[in-house]
């Protein structure tokens, strides 16, 4: 059994159809709403090209989630900033401890560079914390996507536009708000980063052949230009190495500041990895984030902040309690988009997503099922820009494990 009960664990969750006139309620609601008639055309106009995948919707505006301001501020926003600070304490411990750096599977060549980037306070752009939250009680942290989080465009811009237009069409109350100051904060933080490094350019980079990643990078380029800073682009695969040891773009311009939508753990293990130090790049995200984007973060958090209400008990493989009656989730130290995750109950794997990860080892986390709304398991992504909570995104999946095929739904605060 994967589910604790076949019943909807949220007896109080309502499915409401049509126009909004709801009684006061403390619960998070999933409410159906007519789609904007021409949104696909609008998506074309704004360059949102990955709203549908293989004929299946990714962006889904046939429904939305509704929160109260208290839910957002007390249950999501405050814990997000608190957990972020706890994560920074973990970084502070790990960067000066060789044993921990080894446990985090960080190649020795980068220990000093990571410590330096931490000591220099190299500024971070953004992160996304993933939570299980059902509208009451505490949100439980699943993981921290601190290095290469996506679904940024649909969160910061597209769901903002959706709310604006549904309000203007009279489909949503004028009092509707959204927990989403992402774009405003991104523009501000990008300007801050450029001033911090005294640069007039930030290069942007992602892999070839991925429409979604290119869309995310493009979005950040737009935010950067909005901040008055030039934002050239180069694909990760096309980055060059100059005779003088710098990284270059395809115009042979030296890259001095680079946003890379490409994981640190990959870069550190690839051919140009050994040239990273001499290339003297201002990295976004900075290299100290290698510590946070790593699932080893989860058992470290549990060790340093045991029984914190927003944390799930977590262990390194070597420290796993011998007899565990509660089901566990086994996650690779490095993995993306729900790959290679299994749920283990009494030593037996129940769900097992395939994938290419796991050679660097695993961690274990107490199993905490996602809340179910109708037929959907719902995951909340809570964004940080710099050190500030900046909004949420909601993903739904028919499966227990949110993968990259999950649908994205907008939300409101009312």
């Amino acid at each position, binding site marked *: 059994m994967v589910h604790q009960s076949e019943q909807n664990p949220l007896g109080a969750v309502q499915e409401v159809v049509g126009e909004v006139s709801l009684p006061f309620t403390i619960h998070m609601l999933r409410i159906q709403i007519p789609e904007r008639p021409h949104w696909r055309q609008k998506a*074309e106009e*704004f*360059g949102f090209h*990955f709203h549908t995948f*293989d004929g299946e919707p*990714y962006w889904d505006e046939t429904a939305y989630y509704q929160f109260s301001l208290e839910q*957002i501020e007390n249950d999501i926003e405050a814990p997000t900033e608190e957990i972020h600070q706890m994560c920074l304490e973990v970084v502070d411990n790990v960067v000066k401890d060789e044993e921990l750096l080894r446990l985090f599977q960080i190649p020795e060549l980068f220990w000093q560079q990571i410590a330096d980037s931490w000591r220099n306070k190299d500024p971070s752009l953004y992160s996304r914390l993933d939570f299980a939250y059902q509208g009451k009680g505490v949100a439980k942290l699943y993981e921290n996507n601190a290095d*290469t*989080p*996506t679904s940024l465009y649909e969160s*910061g811009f597209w769901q*903002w536009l959706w709310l604006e237009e549904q*309000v203007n069409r009279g489909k949503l109350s*004028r*009092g509707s*708000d*959204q*927990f*989403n*100051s992402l774009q*405003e904060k991104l523009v501000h933080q990008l300007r801050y980063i*450029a001033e911090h490094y*005294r*640069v*007039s*350019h930030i290069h942007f980079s992602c*892999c070839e052949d*991925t*429409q*979604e*990643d290119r869309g995310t990078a493009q979005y950040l380029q*737009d935010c950067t*230009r909005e901040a*008055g*800073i030039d934002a050239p682009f180069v*694909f*990760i*695969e*096309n*980055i060059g*190495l*100059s*005779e*003088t040891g710098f990284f*270059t773009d395809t115009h*042979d311009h*030296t890259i001095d500041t680079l946003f890379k939508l*490409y994981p640190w753990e*990959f870069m550190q*293990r*690839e*051919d*140009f990895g050994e040239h990273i130090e001499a290339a003297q790049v201002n990295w976004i995200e900075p290299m100290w984030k290698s510590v946070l984007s790593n699932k080893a973060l989860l058992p470290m958090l549990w060790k340093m902040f045991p029984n914190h209400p927003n944390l799930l008990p977590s262990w390194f493989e070597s420290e796993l309690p011998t007899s565990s009656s509660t089901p566990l989730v086994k996650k690779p130290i490095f993995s*993306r*988009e729900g790959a290679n995750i299994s749920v283990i109950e009494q030593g037996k794997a129940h769900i097992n997503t*395939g*994938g290419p*990860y796991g050679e660097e080892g695993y961690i274990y986390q107490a199993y905490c099922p996602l809340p179910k709304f109708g037929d959907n398991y719902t995951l909340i992504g809570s964004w940080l820009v710099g050190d500030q909570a900046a909004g949420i995104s909601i993903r739904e999946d028919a499966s227990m494990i949110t993968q*990259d*095929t999950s649908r994205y739904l907008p939300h409101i605060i009312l």
Partner: protein
Amino acid sequence: MTNPIIHQKRSAQINLGRMRKVFAPKPLSLGVASIMLTACGDNREQAMIFTNLQDCVSQMPEQAEQCELAYRNALEEAQRTAPKYAEQSACEYEFGAGQCTSYRSNDGNSWFMPFMAGYMLSNLSSSRYYSSPVFTSYSRYSPYRYRWISADGYEYGDIRKRRVKVSKKAFSPKPTVSKTIKRGGFGSSVRAKSSWGSSRGGWGG
């Protein structure tokens, strides 16, 4: 919104023009510069452009020493950051006949680059001042013809103009143009793992 929300949790305003992709004109590399020059902001300062050292000294005789120091800094910066061309003809196509000089980089390679046409100086009366080389083109094939431009393509207006308002960033060090010896050193992990076909592609999370 008719009812202003006091504790609004979302972005107050988004520049839809910037976000629109279909009807937006493709920005040239110059597009950004014009935005920087027209944007009102506290970050801009008055700068002066001099065509050579003598020009600076004759206009500000009491600051001859600063003129010279700034001139030397700008020359050095020009060597480092000016656009470099492998062929003289390519350089002259962009900057005009007789407007280019040869240059040997530290690694022993030969290049052609435009002459520094002038140097831009921030307010000399403040205790910290900055200088930056500027170039211009006499080529009728160039959009920069008779315009002041920085090493990285920011435009500061007609060359008859000597006083310009610029962003402070105009004086920050410019990227060095480098000779690339190798590409493709990043991205191999994706190729190795992509047989798993993260369905929409992408390595974000």
